[in-house]
């Protein structure tokens, strides 16, 4: 059919990246098991291929969409077509997981587990990459990217709310922990956000003050660099003793939740990791303000404070926001470790799952973490673009 498409929409030749996507998708769906079934949450599983895991209607639908979509990815189709193909495959994989779970779950069985297997994960990851690639080729503006993210979050939320995936093993785990999940999710988000906010509140002013003094500047960046190289587990460990001491020795500290274990060491460690990237980004952003612009700000009679607030910081803003984006994504991931030191967060499920050898429980902690980090990355990238917008080259 492809040969009859309008020129422009489909040009002759092969797209190298798209072919790799198509090959991976085909391989994962044909050669690897799509789903796994297990008699209970910790038993060994049995892999099932797509055609045995899905009801026959779904097999036809998935097969049809993949058969239409893969050539569009592999050949040199126009970006909107590639994006549509990749998005359709991604959507259908999401639906397939729910259909397969319903199909494979025996009525009334409360212990059996159905979960995605290697084929599904590989296909899903590849389709997600292909969607990302299609989007990148279309270069959507920041507002559109935020809107697409909101649409995706809304659609996923709706599917979860209507119970579409309820027979999947991850949601079975959720069902037995729905009372604590919301709380740990909130703790996780609060830990990541407040540690980054505190790092910005401390790191940006520190960088502004230290930057003009060579000794202070190198000292600040070197110190933070050392902190950055301490492995996260070790840093959490190192904080336990001093914070326990503060909790005991300083009146009122314990009442604020400062203790050797719990949220305090987790918060302090996350803050410590976030400081260097934020401070370094601020220094780099301010360094990049062109000298003639700085000079002109002095020449027109701005005070040091006016120069900083009206000229230097606005021009450094995209760089500073990029630093904040990096640490926010980093800290959403690192906050998992708070689960180890009693600080709560999604890490609680991850480490419980590891100790119980229950992979589904690990996923209950890991999947929302990955989703949160990805969402934060997309959102802040768009914000960085918006902040850059005004100074960028733009001819009306």
């Amino acid at each position, binding site marked *: 059919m492809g040969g009859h498409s309008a020129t422009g929409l489909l040009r002759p030749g092969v797209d190298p990246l798209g072919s790799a996507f198509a090959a991976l998708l085909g391989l994962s769906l044909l050669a690897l098991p799509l789903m796994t079934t297990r008699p209970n949450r910790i038993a060994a599983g049995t892999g099932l291929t797509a055609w045995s895991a899905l009801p026959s209607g779904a097999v036809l639908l998935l097969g049809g969409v993949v058969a239409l979509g893969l050539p569009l990815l592999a050949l040199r189709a126009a970006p909107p077509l590639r994006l549509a193909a990749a998005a359709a495959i991604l959507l259908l994989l999401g639906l397939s997981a729910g259909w397969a779970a319903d199909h494979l779950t025996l009525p009334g069985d409360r212990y059996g587990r159905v979960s995605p297997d290697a084929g599904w994960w590989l296909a899903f990851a590849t389709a997600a990459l292909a969607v990302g690639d299609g989007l990148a080729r279309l270069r959507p503006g920041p507002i559109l990217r935020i809107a697409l993210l909101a649409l995706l979050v809304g659609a996923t939320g709706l599917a979860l709310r209507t119970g579409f995936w309820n027979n999947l093993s991850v949601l079975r785990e959720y069902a037995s922990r729905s009372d604590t999940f919301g709380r740990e999710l909130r703790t996780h988000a609060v830990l990541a956000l407040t540690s980054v906010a505190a790092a910005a509140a401390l790191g940006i002013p520190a960088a502004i003050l230290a930057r003009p003094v060579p000794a202070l500047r190198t000292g600040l960046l070197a110190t933070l660099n050392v902190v950055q190289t301490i492995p996260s587990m070790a840093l959490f460990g190192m904080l336990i003793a001093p914070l326990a001491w503060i909790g005991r020795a300083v009146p009122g500290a314990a009442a604020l939740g400062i203790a050797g274990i719990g949220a305090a060491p987790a918060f302090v460690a996350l803050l410590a990791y976030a400081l260097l990237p934020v401070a370094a980004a601020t220094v780099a952003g301010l360094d990049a303000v062109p000298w003639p612009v700085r000079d002109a700000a*002095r020449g027109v*009679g701005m005070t040091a404070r006016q120069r900083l607030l009206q000229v230097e910081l606005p021009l450094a803003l995209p760089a500073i926001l990029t630093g904040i984006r990096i640490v926010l994504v980093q800290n959403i991931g690192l906050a998992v470790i708070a689960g180890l030191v009693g600080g709560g967060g999604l890490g609680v499920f991850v480490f419980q799952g590891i100790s119980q050898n229950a992979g589904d429980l690990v996923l209950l902690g890991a999947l929302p973490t990955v989703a949160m980090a990805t969402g934060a990355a997309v959102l802040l990238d768009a914000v960085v673009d918006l902040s850059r917008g005004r100074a960028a080259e733009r001819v009306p």
Partner: protein
Amino acid sequence: MIDLAQVSRVFEGRTVVADVTLRVEAGTILTVVGTSGSGKTTLLRMINRLIEPSTGTIQIAGRDIRDVPPHLLRRGIGYAIQGHGLFPHRTVAENIAVVPKLLDWDRGRIAARVDELLSLFNLDPAAYRDRLPAALSGGEQQRIGVARALAAEPPILLMDEPFGALDPIIRGRAQEDLRTIQQRYNTTIVLVTHDMDEALHLGHRIAVMDAGRLVQEAPPADLLGAPATAFVGTLLGSGDRAFQLMALRVVDDLVEPGPAPGPPIPAGTSVRAALAESLWSRRPALPVSRDGVILGRVTRAALEAQGGRP
């Protein structure tokens, strides 16, 4: 209006401006010329305290400028920076409005002033007001830089090669506009330029700098009539009739064998252009090449001798 008394500036042990004493009368234009690196910009920037003199004093209207906080001093002195220095994140209108805003003018007055200045520089306010500097040509950016310096109607203007990026026609018009503004507001202007014609045309007086020293400071007629040194004479040469003839002759006949330093000039270069290159690059002789092959050299003496021939 502006008084410099024995002003010097040393950078890292090197005297860049040496013992300059100079007075600019209120309501006059002083143009400053000199070779690249002779200290013109440094001299200019000492007047608004962007650079502090190493020794000597500067007074404005009888008051030592060190007695005024630098940012307040600068708000009263328009400064057109060499190479415009516009704020890239602000629109054309916002750039022009910077000083009036710092001086707390009301919005209506600022908007009217922005449009007035844009029209003055032949830029349609409706089309240019909301553009960012990146969306302007080099010449337009430079005009906005000058407009920003003029915005608050300062009694003193410091201009560092303000018209360098403009083509000859627009440059001529910009010079006329500057004269009109200067007469209307009785502004005192110090203007640095590389263009001797511009210096003679605009300046009530002309200051010639050479290696940090002020070698002559006089009205155009006196300078033309009695150049204080040979250096002033040669700098001036490019503006007079003999040199206009030199623009028509080429260097090819003057090439002699022998070495010369620096990058070569191509055969077919005019005598005037070659002499200018020799003066600005401070080389007594220039290599001449054709198709990448060095033919020989021309000496400044040979070039200058052409100026005397009818």
